[in-house]
C-alpha cells in the first residue's frame, strides 16, 4: 500500500516539475511548482519525517511560493510575456540543460544500483530535529540566522532610501 502511495506521489511530483519548466504562462508554472512541493511533502511524510513534511508545506508551499505569486501579480504579466517565453523555448535551448540533467541522472542510476538504501524509514520526531538543530548543528543555525538578519537589514535600508527619495519628490 505504502509503496503504491510513494510511486503516486513521486510521479505527480515528476510530472508537475516537468510542467513547471515547460509552461509559458508564469502563474501556471507556479501552480505546478506548488503541486510539486506538496507531493514532495507527501514523500517526506511517508519516509518517516512528518516534521520536515509539515515545514515543506508551511514554508515552501505556504510562504515562499506565495511571495513568488505575489511578484508575478505585481509584474502583471500579460500575453506579451507568454509570447516572449514561447520564443525562448526554442528546441536549441534544451541542449545544455538536458546534457547536465542526463549527467546527474546517470549518476543517480549508478548510485541506486550500487548503494544500499540510505532511507531506512526510521520515523524522526520533531523533538529529535530540535535537539540535533540546537546541538551538533548549532553553528549552521546561527550562520543561517545571521544571513537572514543581514538580508532583513539590507532590504530595510534599501526600502528606506527609496521612501526618502519619494518623500523629497513630493515635497
Amino acid at each position, binding site marked *: 500500500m505504502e509503496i503504491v502511495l510513494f510511486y503516486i506521489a513521486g510521479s505527480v511530483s515528476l510530472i508537475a516539475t516537468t510542467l513547471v519548466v515547460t509552461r509559458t504562462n508564469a*502563474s501556471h508554472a507556479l501552480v505546478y511548482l506548488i503541486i510539486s512541493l506538496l507531493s514532495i511533502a507527501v514523500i517526506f511524510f511517508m519516509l518517516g519525517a*512528518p516534521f520536515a513534511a509539515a515545514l515543506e508545506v508551511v514554508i515552501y508551499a505556504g510562504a515562499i511560493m*506565495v511571495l513568488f505569486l*505575489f511578484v508575478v*501579480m*505585481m509584474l502583471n504579466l500579460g500575453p506579451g510575456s507568454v509570447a516572449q517565453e514561447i520564443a525562448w523555448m526554442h528546441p536549441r535551448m534544451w541542449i545544455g540543460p538536458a546534457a547536465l540533467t542526463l549527467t546527474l541522472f546517470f549518476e543517480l542510476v549508478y548510485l541506486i544500483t550500487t548503494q544500499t538504501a540510505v532511507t531506512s524509514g526510521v520515523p524522526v520526531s520533531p523533538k529529535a530535529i530540535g535537539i540535533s538543530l540546537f546541538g551538533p548543528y548549532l553553528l549552521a543555525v546561527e550562520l543561517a540566522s545571521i544571513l537572514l538578519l543581514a538580508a532583513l537589514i539590507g532590504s530595510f535600508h534599501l526600502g528606506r532610501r527609496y521612501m526618502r527619495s519619494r518623500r523629497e519628490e513630493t515635497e
Partner: protein
Amino acid sequence: MNIEFEYIMILPVLLGAMLASALLVWWERRLLGWWQDRLGPNRLGPFGVLQVVADIVKLFTKHDWVPPFSDRVIFTLAPTAVVAGMLMGFAVVPYGPGLYIIDLNIGLLFFLAMTSLAVYGVLLSGLASNNKYSLLGGLRSAAQMVSYEVFMGLSLMGVVMLTGSFNMSQIVEAQRDIWNCIPQFVGLVIFLMAGLAEMHRLPFDLPEAEHELTAGFHTEYSGMKFGLIMLGEYLSLILTCAMTVTLFFGGWLGPDFLPPLVWFSLKTALLINFFILLRAAIPRPRYDQLMSMGWKILLPLTLLNLMVTGALALWMET
C-alpha cells in the same frame, strides 16, 4: 484508534462543518441585526432559520458566469482551494477524548500548513480574474496573510513549549490544571488577531473592502463559485475558533455534568459569537495601519512572549 473509526469520523465532521457554516450565515445576520437594533432575516420558518435554505437555493440556481477575459482553469479551481484547505484543517481538531479524524504528532503544524495553503484560493482567484480590483484585493490579501501567518505560528509556540508537544490531544490534556488562556494570555490575544487577519473578516477584511475595491478578489465570482468562497470564509471562522478553544480554552475539558463534545461545541459557539460581535463593534483600520501594527507591535510582542515563556519553562524545570 483503529483505521475504520477514523474513516467513520470523516462524514460527521464534514457534515457538521458544512451545516454549521450554512447556519452561521443566518445566525450572523440575526445577531448583527439584534446588536444594531434591527430585525435581520426573521420571516422564513421559525426565527428565520429557513433563510439558509433560500440562500442555498439562490446560490445554486444563479447564473454561474466565467468572465471571458479570465484564466478559466485557475478561475474555476481557486475557490476549491479555499474550502479544501479549511476542511483539511478540521482533521486534526480533537472534538472529545478519542474523537478525532487523525491524531498526528505534528497536529498543530498541520493546521498551520493547511491554513497557509488556503491563501492560494484568495491569491489565485484574484490573479485569474484578470480585473484590477481583484488583482489589488489578491495582492493585499497575500501581504496581509503572509505577514500575519508569521506570528500566528509564533504565538502558538508558547503553548507548544508549555505542553512539549505538537499533538492536539496532548495539548488539551496538559490543560487539566489550568487553561492555557491564563499563562499564555498574550499568545491568545495575538493568535486571535492573527486569526482574524487570516480569515479576513471585518474588521480586517481589507482584501475585499467594498468601499474601495468593489468586492476585492471575488469581484468576478458568481453563483456557486462565490458560494464556495463564502463557505471557505465561514469554515475558516469555525476552524479558527475550534483551534483557539483547543489550544487556549481547554478543548473538550469541563465539569462532568455535560459530555466533552458538548463542552467543546459550547465553547466554540461562544467564541464564534465573540468574533461576530467584533465585526459589529470595531471599525476597519487603514491598510498601512494594519501592516505596521503587525510588524512593529505584534511581532516584537510575540517574540517577547516566546522568550519569557521559554525562560519561565526552563526556570520551573530546574
